């Protein structure tokens, strides 16, 4: 069952609320018995959205707007934006003004992720999610929030285990299938995800690991399994990543403690501000260190840096990642694309050339 059909079915029995980046604390929605879904891009070309937002907006963000205009997200009870990047901020303003969902909430998120931000952010979380609870006739309780924290932690733990197995070469699945599973964790209900996970393990645990050129992917955002298929086809195996929709989703857990809503909210806030950062957050040094760690511990032969067109923070961050990779003599490739891989042929040629370059180094 495809992603949208699945969600339309879920929406028949419970509220489904969409979000846009991995800084959204899904624990709160689960505690409200609302199904959180990180909205994914599709193949739609921008048409209606062109009248509402300029061409230099991030194509991924603009695609989500296009989907909303075309009614593909009508099953949503609402959406929640955080302060993430300037393109999503523009999309938020249009979404809200055009009333594209029954409710459109906004979290006044801390952009600076230092420990002092946690108390502020916890208050903001409670403020926003209590508003949402009121809109949906729900009640946020400490008991439900505690359970939600455990549940989401559990999901992160299994993903991390699976990731480590694959990194060690004891899980014989290709990159495309692995990332399809990771992406599904952001839209499947917990029980459905666990079923999918069991099937996945059953399918791949006895397979033979095919030798391929190991690489690590660094990017802000990619939710297109076809990109990973392209890498598989070229002869790469993505053994690790530095992507918001990849390891940054599940690397850190929320501390499971706290007696009242406020204490639990602070624990949640701490996890979200201290997790491996995206380049839109400050400070972001940990990101480069995480990337280097992944390269060194995964036996990767190179790094592919993928930038979505017009992504400002990645356009800056690349300069520093490039410098560090050059210093450490790690081969790397910079590529730019959009969620539809509209320059797929060009990408393929460049990836093939990079594979040859790395293989040359191996020899």
């Amino acid at each position, binding site marked *: 069952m495809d992603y949208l059909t699945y969600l339309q079915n879920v929406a028949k029995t419970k509220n489904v609320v969409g979000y846009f980046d991995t800084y959204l604390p899904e624990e709160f929605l689960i505690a409200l018995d609302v199904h959180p879904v990180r909205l994914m891009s599709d193949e739609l070309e921008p048409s209606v959205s062109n*009248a*509402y*937002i*300029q061409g*230099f*907006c991030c194509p991924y963000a603009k695609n989500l707007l296009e989907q909303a205009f075309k009614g593909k997200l009508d099953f949503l009870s609402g959406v929640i934006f955080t*302060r993430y*990047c*300037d*393109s999503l*901020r*523009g*999309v938020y*303003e*249009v979404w*809200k*003004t*055009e009333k594209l969902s029954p409710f459109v909430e*906004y979290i*006044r*998120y*801390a*952009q*600076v992720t*230092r420990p*002092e*931000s946690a108390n*502020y952010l916890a*208050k*903001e979380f409670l403020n926003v999610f209590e508003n949402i609870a009121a809109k949906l006739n729900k009640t946020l309780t400490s008991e439900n929030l505690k359970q939600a924290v455990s549940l989401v932690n559990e999901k992160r733990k299994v993903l991390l285990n699976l990731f480590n197995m694959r990194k060690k070469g004891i899980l014989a699945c290709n990159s495309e299938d692995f990332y399809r599973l990771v992406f599904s964790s952001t839209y499947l209900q917990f029980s459905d995800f666990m079923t999918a996970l069991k099937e996945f393990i059953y399918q791949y645990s006895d397979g033979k690991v095919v030798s391929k050129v190991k690489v690590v992917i660094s990017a802000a955002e990619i939710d297109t399994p076809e990109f990973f298929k392209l890498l598989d086809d070229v002869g790469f195996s993505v053994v690790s990543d530095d992507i918001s929709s990849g390891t940054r989703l599940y690397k850190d857990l929320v501390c499971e403690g706290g007696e009242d809503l406020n204490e639990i909210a602070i624990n949640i806030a701490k996890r979200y501000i201290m997790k491996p950062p995206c*380049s*839109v957050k*400050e*400070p*972001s040094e940990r990101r480069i260190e995480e990337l280097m760690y992944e390269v060194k511990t995964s036996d990767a032969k190179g790094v592919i840096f993928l*930038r979505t*067109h*017009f992504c*400002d*923070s990645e*356009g*800056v*961050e*690349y*300069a*520093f990642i*490039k*410098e560090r990779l050059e210093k450490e003599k790690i081969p790397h490739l910079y590529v730019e694309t959009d969620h539809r891989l509209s320059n797929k042929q060009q990408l393929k040629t460049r990836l093939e050339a990079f594979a040859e370059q790395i293989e040359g180094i191996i020899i």
Partner: protein
Amino acid sequence: MGKRLKATESLKKLIKNYYDEFFEVSKAGKPVAWLNVGVPCEIFYAMDVFPFYPENYGAMCGAQRVTPELSKVSEYKGFTQDLCSYARANIGALLAKKGPMGELPLPTLQVETTNSCVMIMTWWRSVGRLFNIPTYTIDAPQVKYDSDGFHLDYMEEELKRMIAFVEDKTGNKFDQDKFVEITKIANQGKRLWAEILELRAHVPCPMNAGDIFTHMFPMVALRGKEDYIKHLEFLRDELKERIVNKDFPVPNEKVRLLWDNLPIWYDLRLFDELEQYGAIFVIDTYTQAWGPRFMGIVDENNPLRSYGYYVGSGFLNVQIERRYDLLKELVAQYKVDGIVMHSDRSCKPYSLVQPELARRAREELGVPSLLLEADHNDQLGYDREKVIGRLKEFIEMIETNKG
């Protein structure tokens, strides 16, 4: 065409003195802070730390048309070519050790705030990393309309943390009494700036947009300095004089326009060009960022919290509701016939809401808008003839509609 103000000469002296002082204090090894325009310079004057604004320097790079050349240097380093042209020019100038003022001496520290865009944060981050300069980021989570409640508490705490950082890096102590004195002077200047902006509402308008954009400099960098007051008084008096003497840039005004977004720094003459068609930009949204609505009078009894409010409620830190209300107020106050929205490739938060704002202005205020794509600092790809052609058509359309 292009009647210049006498105050422009006084402004040139102010700018020269400011840059002379910047080079002198840097050479003497005194503390210098590079700030983005959302960070209040008053706090730094109160701490004897010289506040320098790279965005202002970026505009200078734009006006002198050196951005493409400097950008090549930052692009060679790995920064992509579609980033904000202020950032590309500034980083390029630092790496190349050249620019409109020659090699810039590096600062003691940097402070920026997230109250405008992600680019500013990553630009300051880059300079900090490239040149090993201690950098503080004032977190300013974006608000819907303005900062209040626990958000405002957080803003005040952020400013306190920033002050502790500056004390630590410079050894200079924060002096509350001096801070209040400087705030009083800054407030005096803000009142004058508000008067200047209001004088532009006169029909015919006494000041074209090119002049107001140039005269923003003291509001950005000199708040709290005595000579800033003198200059603003001079400017205000000259505008009053123009009104009394009926000495206007466009005596027979036909079309009154509003400019939305940063100016096109390498083509400020564009505004003069339209005078021959009887059109004048009587107001803009950009200089409002330093006006009473977004950087208003600071409470002298509780200044830090008050500055926290203005940082938290900065012009690009509010949402579309407040941006629209501003347009609505300006259209009424300045008797605006049309809005020109500079869709600026280098400023997403300013630009990406413009199509919605244009639609609302048309439907709810009955005011037409023109969306003009350009870049505020990088002239590559700028087709002046085409831009003037589109503006001319827009002006003609407004005139026809007015009958």
